[in-house]
């Protein structure tokens, strides 16, 4: 039974971390573009 | 010279849409053929007895109508996109809601005609005989059809300028319409099987119609000019 509990907790954090990773990637992309815009 | 009234433009636009449809018959033909296919294929798939078909017909009819409505909406709005005719309407002083009402009433007429044509086929293919009173089915059909076309028309305008708009329409229309679909299917099934009173679902549909017609009329102008 306890494996269901662990599954739920892990799933929750996998989704959250996945989303945070996605946000980080997008932020990185924006940063790079800002740099490029500054350089030209 | 003064700006034309809501009713006058609604009437003129509706007449124009009906005339266009009469000349091309795009919408009604595709809807009719599509529904016919659904009837035939589902009847193969389920091979229903009279008892079973009473239970599933409600869902079947309305799923067919839902998709047919989407087709009708895509057709009528495609006409407004051709030659950018919508721009001519938008620059005119005509009230935007007149266009909304005309399109909604037009689609309502098309879907109602389709329902009238399809009903005998459903009865035939599925050995349908309603246990509950038939007048209730008529009321349900009117309320349900309005529920489908009123939001459908609104979302057609939303999706008209998106990429791959023909797919976008069902994508946004279905989730919002879930309560209405649930109501129309349940109400129809209850009348056909005669198990319970469909009154609650009919009331729900009526309130749904009123609420969303209001929301549509309030927001349509904003959406039409969303550029």
């Amino acid at each position: 039974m306890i494996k269901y509990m662990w599954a739920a907790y892990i799933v929750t954090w996998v989704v959250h971390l996945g989303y945070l990773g996605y946000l980080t990637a997008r932020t990185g992309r924006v940063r790079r573009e800002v740099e490029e815009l500054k350089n030209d | 010279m003064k700006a034309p009234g809501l009713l006058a433009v609604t009437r003129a636009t509706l007449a124009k849409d009906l005339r266009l449809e009469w000349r091309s018959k795009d919408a009604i033909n595709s809807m009719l053929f599509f529904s016919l296919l659904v009837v035939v294929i589902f009847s193969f798939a389920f091979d229903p007895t009279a008892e079973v078909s009473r239970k599933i017909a409600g869902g079947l009819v309305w799923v067919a109508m839902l998709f047919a409505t989407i087709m009708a909406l895509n057709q009528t709005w495609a006409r407004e996109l051709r030659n950018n005719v919508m721009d001519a309407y938008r620059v005119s002083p005509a009230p935007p809601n007149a266009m909304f009402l005309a399109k909604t009433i037009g689609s309502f007429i098309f879907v109602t005609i389709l329902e009238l044509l399809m009903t005998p086929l459903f009865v035939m293919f599925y050995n349908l005989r309603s246990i509950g009173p038939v007048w209730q089915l008529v009321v349900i059909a009117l309320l349900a059809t309005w529920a489908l076309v009123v939001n459908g028309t609104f979302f057609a305008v939303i999706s008209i300028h998106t990429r791959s708009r023909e797919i976008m329409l069902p994508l946004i229309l279905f989730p919002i319409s879930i309560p209405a679909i649930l109501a129309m299917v349940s109400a129809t099934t209850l009348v056909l099987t005669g198990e319970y009173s469909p009154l609650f679902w009919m009331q729900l549909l009526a309130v749904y119609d009123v609420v969303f017609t209001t929301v549509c009329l309030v927001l349509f102008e904003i959406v039409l000019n969303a550029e």
Partner: protein
Amino acid sequence: MSFTYTPDSVAAVTTPAVSLFEITKHFGRFAALRGVSAEFMPGKLYVILGENGAGKSTLLRIVAGLLAPTRGELRVLGTGKLREVALRVGYMGHAPLLYDELDAMENMRYFAGLYGIKDDALCATVLGRVGLDAKLRRRVGQYSQGMRQRTSLARAIVHDPELLLLDEPFSNVDVASAKDMAHLLGVMRDQGKTIFVVTHQAPVMQPVADECIVITAGRLTAREKGIPRHLLSPYAAEVRR
């Protein structure tokens, strides 16, 4: 000394028909217009020239109220609320803005209705003005491009607008039709209408143009009386002979 009385007619002449202040329009990462400011007096015929993608059509659509500018303000016929003056503005788009499945008269009747006009005789007269036969029962979809553009012009002027905005009215139109239309525009200007014509075919408009405006890459770069010779040539290439 002060003026105590200004007749309406004087006020009407001195108010610009269209005034633009720092009009900017972005489409995502692309800027179509950037800071266009200008005033245009009524009763004149303006020709807007410029290369493809310079922002001419965008500007016209903004004045017509079809597009909202990203920044900047505009006043049309004395107001910033464009819907209030929709009755007095006519717009002819790049596409014909007509229903292909209807004939010319049916189209006219419908679009006149949008301006509160229920007058078949008037619709027929306007069709006559652009050189079309109101009794022709052919559907617009089967018209030649020249006839289609004439019908489209008729649609735009059916309510006798004070301000007329035309986007490429002569595209793919035969020279004879284009000349007829240009002449008609000249007549309308002489009746006191303000007319804007976006076009690549400057020579067609030269006999009737009061001023020309050049838009280059989203900016208003030149404004001249009439159409000077040097502006005729670069855009003249596309005129059919």
